[in-house]
């Protein structure tokens, strides 16, 4: 057998048969479902009188639309309530397990999959959500799909796909102190652009990646979609196995599973369509200044000048972004003041993220006039954080401590920016209006967002005075 990449091995293992015109019918091991992108899919099944093929491989939760405060079983917004009730009804009718709002397992779909041990190396995982790429951190092939494909997987447990191209992103050397996996992925997207990996599945490798925890790896894979990639993945290793072992849905026949997972890595000499080398030692803490995740720079830098852009379309893009963001070329990023701070989302709302943020604010108060909130990625993360007393640190500093959900990453619930408000956010998208119409989002790591809450503006976290 010729040398194969990790992606090719998983693809081969899941090929059911050839489809028409060069396509492949690919088997899906795990299908995660949430309230926003599924109602039309279930309705499609109902109309065609089809069933869910594998109710044992389909898991649903509520995350996008739900309140993060108050009595969550009472949802004021009638449309949001309708969607939540539709998912409950659909799960009952079709026999799909649902982690409902009062369930201890409830949380953001990409946080709970790994937590429950549903996410496993070598698996194919889909969800009607672009950040499904998160699960690739376990050496799985995980990607977002639209609602029609959600219906397809519900009915057939398969998708008809054309094989993606492969890209290797290799990080040499180790990260400097204060630099996190959020900075790594923002630096990559700034380098290759938001369409730099379109049509590709990225595999991340190298010393800097191997040294990262599972939670940090998830942050990188999560934002692969922001570089346009179909998926992002990291081959499983001992860190992966240690994370998974003993989790609720982890394999019972552990030895056999681990032996198989150990074969799931790119073979020496395997060919990638594209290879990128990045010196990890040179990556600085990053902040976005514009209206897509590629518009990012080291926090020590300045807002770019559109007149220095490489071409006219880039110039227009920067000009539009600066107008929307209300920033002037040449402004130092560290001088940009913030109104709001959001620590949350499937990118950065796991326990380690909350620990990092809490460590920064410990002994400090947030700056006057700033509204700051922490939204844990899941109820399990929330409980674990409370056991460590992190909620007290956040509350003492002036942060709000919320219930789990997607919250202000996309502002489908009441957690939204007001027009003109500027937010330091640990989420994944700084698109126009993403966190609320007219709102201005700057993406960064949890530690950097926490430091911004205290300082009132962006700061280089490497210079932070910790009070521990």
């Amino acid at each position, binding site marked *: 057998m010729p040398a194969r990449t990790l992606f090719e091995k998983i693809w081969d293992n899941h090929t059911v048969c050839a489809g028409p015109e060069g396509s492949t019918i690919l088997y899906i091991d795990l299908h995660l479902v949430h309230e926003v992108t599924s109602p039309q899919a279930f309705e499609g099944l109902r109309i065609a009188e089809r069933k869910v093929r594998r109710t044992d491989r389909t898991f649903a939760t509520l995350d996008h639309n739900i309140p993060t405060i108050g009595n969550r079983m009472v949802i004021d917004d009638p449309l949001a309530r309708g969607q939540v009730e539709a998912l409950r009804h659909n799960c009952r009718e079709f026999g799909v397990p649902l982690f409902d709002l009062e369930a201890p397992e409830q949380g953001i779909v990409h946080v709970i999959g790994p937590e429950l041990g549903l996410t496993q190396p070598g698996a194919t995982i889909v969800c009607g959500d672009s950040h499904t790429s998160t699960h690739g951190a376990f050496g799985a092939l995980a990607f977002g799909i639209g609602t029609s494909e959600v219906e397809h997987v519900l009915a*057939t447990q398969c998708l008809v796909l054309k094989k993606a191209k492969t890209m290797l992103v290799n990080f040499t050397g180790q990260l400097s102190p204060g630099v996190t996996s959020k900075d790594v992925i923002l630096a990559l997207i700034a380098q290759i652009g938001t369409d730099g990996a379109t*049509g590709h599945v990225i595999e991340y490798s190298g010393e800097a990646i191997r040294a990262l925890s599972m939670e940090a790896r998830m942050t990188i894979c999560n934002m692969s979609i922001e570089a346009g990639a179909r998926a992002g993945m990291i081959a499983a290793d001992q860190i992966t196995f240690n994370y998974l072992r003993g989790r609720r849905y982890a394999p019972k026949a552990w030895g056999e599973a681990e032996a198989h997972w150990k074969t799931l890595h790119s073979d020496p000499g395997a060919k990638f369509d594209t290879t990128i080398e990045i010196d990890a030692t040179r990556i600085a803490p990053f902040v976005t200044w514009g209206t897509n995740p590629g518009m990012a720079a080291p926090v020590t830098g300045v807002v770019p000048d559109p007149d220095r852009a490489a071409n006219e379309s880039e110039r227009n893009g920067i000009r539009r972004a600066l107008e929307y963001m209300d920033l002037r070329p040449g402004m130092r990023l560290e001088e940009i003041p913030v109104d709001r701070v959001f620590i949350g989302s499937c990118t950065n709302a796991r326990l380690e993220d909350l620990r990092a943020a809490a460590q920064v604010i410990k002994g400090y108060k947030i700056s006057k006039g700033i509204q700051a909130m922490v939204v844990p990625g899941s109820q399990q993360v929330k409980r674990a954080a409370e056991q460590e007393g992190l909620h007290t640190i956040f509350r003492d500093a002036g942060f709000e401590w919320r219930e789990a959900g997607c919250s202000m990453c996309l502002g489908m619930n009441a957690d939204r920016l007001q027009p003109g408000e500027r937010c330091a956010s640990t989420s994944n998208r700084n*698109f126009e209006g993403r966190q609320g119409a007219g709102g201005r989002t700057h993406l960064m790591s949890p530690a950097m967002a926490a430091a911004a809450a205290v300082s009132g503006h962006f700061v280089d976290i490497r210079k932070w005075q910790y009070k521990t």
Partner: protein
Amino acid sequence: MQSFTVHTGLVAPLERENVDTDQIIPKQFLKRTERTGYGECLFFDWRFDAAGRPNPAFPLNALQYTGASILLTGKNFGCGSSREHAVWALRDYGFRAVIAPSFADIFSSNCVKNGLLTVALKPEEINTLMARASADRLNLKVDLEKCEVSTADGFTAKFTVEPFRRMCLLEGMDEIGMTLKHDAEISAYERRQRV
């Protein structure tokens, strides 16, 4: 699904790159449980001001583009969120084809399921068409059988579409029905892999 063979229609130019699906349809319109009725929400925050009045500077609000069924735009169209509502909104508004230098992956896949054709042309061809559509009413013929875009006055450009997607669009295929024909193979796979 409605098939796509040949379509002739008016072009609306949207000269922006990296248009994300949050712009195509903002989140407040994703709370419904139907597939229809999203046309009025298309490009909502660009099309309307805070008071809900049409923004005169936005191309779709210009009289000369009323009735447009082909959208012409910049590279990486449809990036970001996987929301199929973006495609439902474009279709419901009346678009049958989007022409751009490139498209985001999930968006193009969603388009195929809804009979919306994405046509990738070379940047210089896009520039030519953009200039013409911005200056005057431009009608284009998009022919999926010949994989060709043309005007009545002699402009032509060839494009390629992945063969499986082309087949789905030409035949208006029920993809789920097609996969279900492989039920025996799927069951055999499940037995073989013990899944």
